[in-house]
């Protein structure tokens, strides 16, 4: 029976003890937190990069810098880097990605000209550097400000929830109704669908969105996933990858062959670097990216680039990427690729399709396109297994063509080519009106159907689809609409049966009286 006036009871009474613990905890966390802040100030900047329209430079170059970590998932990122401007159709997706980041978070927009900023996003940092070093300085400063508290974390872009009320509704508080007890967070559970083993198992309708790191920015795939096998695919948004300036210029005016071939080698190497990164070879991918930058800058001369490319080819061959990651994955048959101007993808399938064959400047240099010989032979013998090119063949071709382009660039000696309306760009044959990628996007559904998810990603990465960025429109998601309607129908049925049950009960009650 100790009262608060008793001298010893300040520690004896429960509330006193609790407040003492809370004070110690507060003091401990306060000093500890300030110590951690001092330690965290020099940490590498955790960035989730979004590629938009017309970025000042390729955000993939951030992989080469030591002070920045470019992440696959926005969850643990501190800064959302938006390179270029976001197309209208993808604003919603950017807002979702922004909200999924953990606090403390900030957005940095990297545009060519701040005056061009069209988005109605409450941007707090608009930077227009064209060199990476200044950008990284800004990123570091923003992260340090977030860590020390000098800058407050950004609020959500999207409102809390627009879904129908589910909290507290129904007997379990999960929105009531339905066999599975409701729809927590407004989402039902997956429904069953027939599967190949003569089973009926759950099928997840998924929308793999525009900012999935392995795909070009802006590619939206609506897939039906059963287990880890893709049962159905639809391309809901096709990104538009702009041609490199040299190739765009070459459509109308003759351009130096050396410049063009160096640009082609650089593009192939960038694409290979991305593919290597997706397959777990981040260090080798960075090495390839460094070579691409070196080829583009053309400061150290062609010979060292050629030697480095040979070393990289040797290392890629030894890494198993061409064997256990890619052999037999994503086979594109020779007939499907014939005569469509699909560039390296077609040549890897054994089709001798290259607009450079008819160019006099290239003929003078003795140009002969690299074609996957094995696929050609197999087609002649009508063997269905290797009648075409798989991912391994496409990568081998990228490496070989990069070496060939460097060789042509070294021997070009001022020759000029193109200027008559068509050009062989790194992704295929391009004219003023037509790019090669839409044909590949049209082929994706049939190609990916029935593949395991990892193989599907490998296949998409192996097709030269460009880096993406701009998207014209995003198709509505039919599967999600169907799921929502069937969930609503189930809820209506359950409510209706409840009603009839209650009516029956009052009837018997009435009778009992």
């Amino acid at each position, binding site marked *: 029976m100790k009262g608060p006036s008793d001298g010893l009871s300040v520690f004896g009474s429960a509330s006193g003890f609790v407040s003492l613990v809370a004070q110690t905890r507060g003091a401990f*966390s306060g000093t500890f937190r300030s110590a951690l802040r001092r330690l965290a100030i020099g940490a590498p900047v955790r960035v989730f990069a979004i590629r938009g329209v017309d970025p000042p430079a390729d955000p993939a170059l951030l992989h080469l810098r030591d002070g920045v970590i470019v992440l696959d998932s926005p969850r643990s990122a501190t800064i959302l880097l938006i390179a270029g401007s976001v197309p209208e159709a993808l604003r919603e*997706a950017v807002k979702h990605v922004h909200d999924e980041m953990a606090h403390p978070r900030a957005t940095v927009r990297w545009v060519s000209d701040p005056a061009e900023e069209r988005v109605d996003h409450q941007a707090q940092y608009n930077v227009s550097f064209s060199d990476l070093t200044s950008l990284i300085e800004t990123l570091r400063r923003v992260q340090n400000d977030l860590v020390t508290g000098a800058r407050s974390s950004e609020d*959500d872009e999207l409102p809390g929830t627009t879904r129908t009320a589910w909290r507290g509704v129904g007997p379990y508080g999960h929105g009531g109704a339905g066999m599975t007890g409701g729809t927590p967070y407004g*989402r039902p559970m997956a429904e069953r669908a027939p599967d190949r*083993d003569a089973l009926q198992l759950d099928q997840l309708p998924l929308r793999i*969105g525009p900012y999935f790191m392995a795909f070009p920015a802006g590619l939206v795939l609506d897939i039906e996933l059963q287990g880890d096998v893709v049962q159905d695919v639809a391309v809901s948004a096709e990104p538009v990858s702009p041609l490199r300036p040299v190739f765009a210029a070459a459509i109308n005016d003759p351009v130096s062959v050396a410049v063009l071939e160096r640009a082609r080698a650089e593009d192939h190497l960038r694409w290979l670097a991305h593919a290597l990164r997706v397959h777990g070879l981040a260090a080798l991918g960075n090495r390839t990216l460094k070579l691409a930058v070196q080829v583009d800058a053309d400061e150290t001369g062609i010979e060292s680039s050629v030697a480095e490319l040979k070393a990289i080819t040797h290392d890629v061959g030894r890494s198993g990427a061409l064997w256990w990651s890619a052999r037999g994955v994503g086979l594109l048959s020779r007939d499907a690729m014939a005569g469509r101007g699909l560039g390296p993808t077609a040549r890897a399938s054994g089709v001798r399709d290259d607009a450079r064959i008819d160019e006099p400047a290239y003929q003078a240099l003795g140009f002969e396109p690299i074609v996957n010989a094995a696929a050609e032979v197999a087609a002649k013998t009508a063997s269905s297994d290797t009648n075409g090119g798989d991912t391994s063949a496409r990568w081998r071709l990228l490496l070989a063509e990069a070496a060939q382009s460097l060789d042509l660039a070294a021997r070009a000696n001022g020759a000029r080519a193109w200027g008559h309306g068509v050009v062989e760009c790194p992704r295929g044959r391009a004219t003023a009106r037509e790019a090669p990628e839409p044909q590949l996007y049209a082929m994706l559904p049939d190609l990916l159907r029935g593949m395991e998810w990892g193989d599907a990603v490998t296949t998409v990465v192996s097709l030269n689809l460009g880096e993406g960025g701009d998207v014209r429109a995003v198709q509505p998601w039919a599967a999600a609409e169907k799921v929502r309607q069937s969930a609503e129908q189930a809820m209506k049925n359950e409510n209706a049966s409840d009603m009839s049950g209650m009516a029956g009960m009052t009837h018997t009650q009435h009778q009992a009286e």
Partner: protein
Amino acid sequence: MFALGGAFTVFVAGILAWLAMRWVGDVLSPVASTDAERVPFTGGYEPAVHAWSRYHVRYYAMALLFLAFDMEMVFMYPWAMVFMREGVTALVEMLMFIVILVLGILYAWREGAFRWA
């Protein structure tokens, strides 16, 4: 005798250490997620359904084969301890056991248990 308790103690101490660190992290940066922040990341859109589902585990045949080999492993542990003492008998008997199980692998291979996509 202490050894069994020792392993359990280390295990429990490890779990408590990790949980304690998590608690420290929650004290330093409190958790408070709004609905918009909770949406799972699939690239930028909200999911249509919850991910929890009756996932089609296509390697179930391989898992059954693994069960058989797991039991073989259990038998091989005490066999390893008495092997030198028992001599050739032990070797030959275990060899017969293993050959039967390896025939099981060959059968499963032929039936496509290792191929599922």
